[in-house]
């Protein structure tokens, strides 16, 4: 009795939707970042799951992809949070509803 690939993909889909929920429905910029990170995590889960269930799992392609994806999302988080701080300094708000001007 082991879970099939479908189960993992379903979890991944749910995780993605939750991430989308955070990114779409919350006002605070950090929530959007958390949402994006969750979506990326869902994608990573997919990479690993498809690698595990692949016909030739001896090549670590999926794992490699996930590793690079984690590294890149770490970079993205750093930049994103730095931007949140920079924006906060400038506008004194992190509410994305109020951030609709390109010019400062």
């Amino acid at each position: 009795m082991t879970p099939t690939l479908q189960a993992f993909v379903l979890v991944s889909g749910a995780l993605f939707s939750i991430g989308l929920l955070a990114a779409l429905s919350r006002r605070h910029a950090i929530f959007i970042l958390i949402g994006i990170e969750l979506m990326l995590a869902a994608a990573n889960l997919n990479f690993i799951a498809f690698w595990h269930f692949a016909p030739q799992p001896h090549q670590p392609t999926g794992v490699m992809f996930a590793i690079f994806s984690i590294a890149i999302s770490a970079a993205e988080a750093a930049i994103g949070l730095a931007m949140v701080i920079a924006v906060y300094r400038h506008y004194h708000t992190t509410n994305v509803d109020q951030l609709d001007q390109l010019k400062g």
Partner: protein
Amino acid sequence: MSNAAFVIIAIFTLAAALAAATLRKLMHAALSFAVALVGLAALFFLLGAEFVGLALVFIYIGAVAVLIVFTILLTRRDVGKDRGFNWAGVLIALAVFCGLTWSILKTQSLSIVAPHIRALTVKRIGEALMTGYVWPLQCVGLLLTAALIGALILVMEEKR
């Protein structure tokens, strides 16, 4: 790998993720996010990708989560409580969830069982990184350096 473990971990992960998306206090949400990632790492363990799971914990709990809570602290003035939901967003997310679930359930080729595989050792990952994936690795190194410098410059106080 048993069904029971999978179900428990999946529910744990999704609950934590849902908490991260919906909790009213930002700090609690951030901490729930960290918990959700621990669950995800456990899923990776189940899938035999121990290295990725450990790396995920290491990077997300050790670095990204701390970064997030720091940012929350630095932008504290209007944190308080996040007022209200954008219900349209909730609807869209729900629709996406339904669509994804429907299409996943509909796809027959996904219901397969894992083949028996040799454990993926860290050594093999290291060898792959240093041989076939050496250029992507260099590029990621460059990217991370650029991100480091960029983040520093972004948050640097302007001297007046």
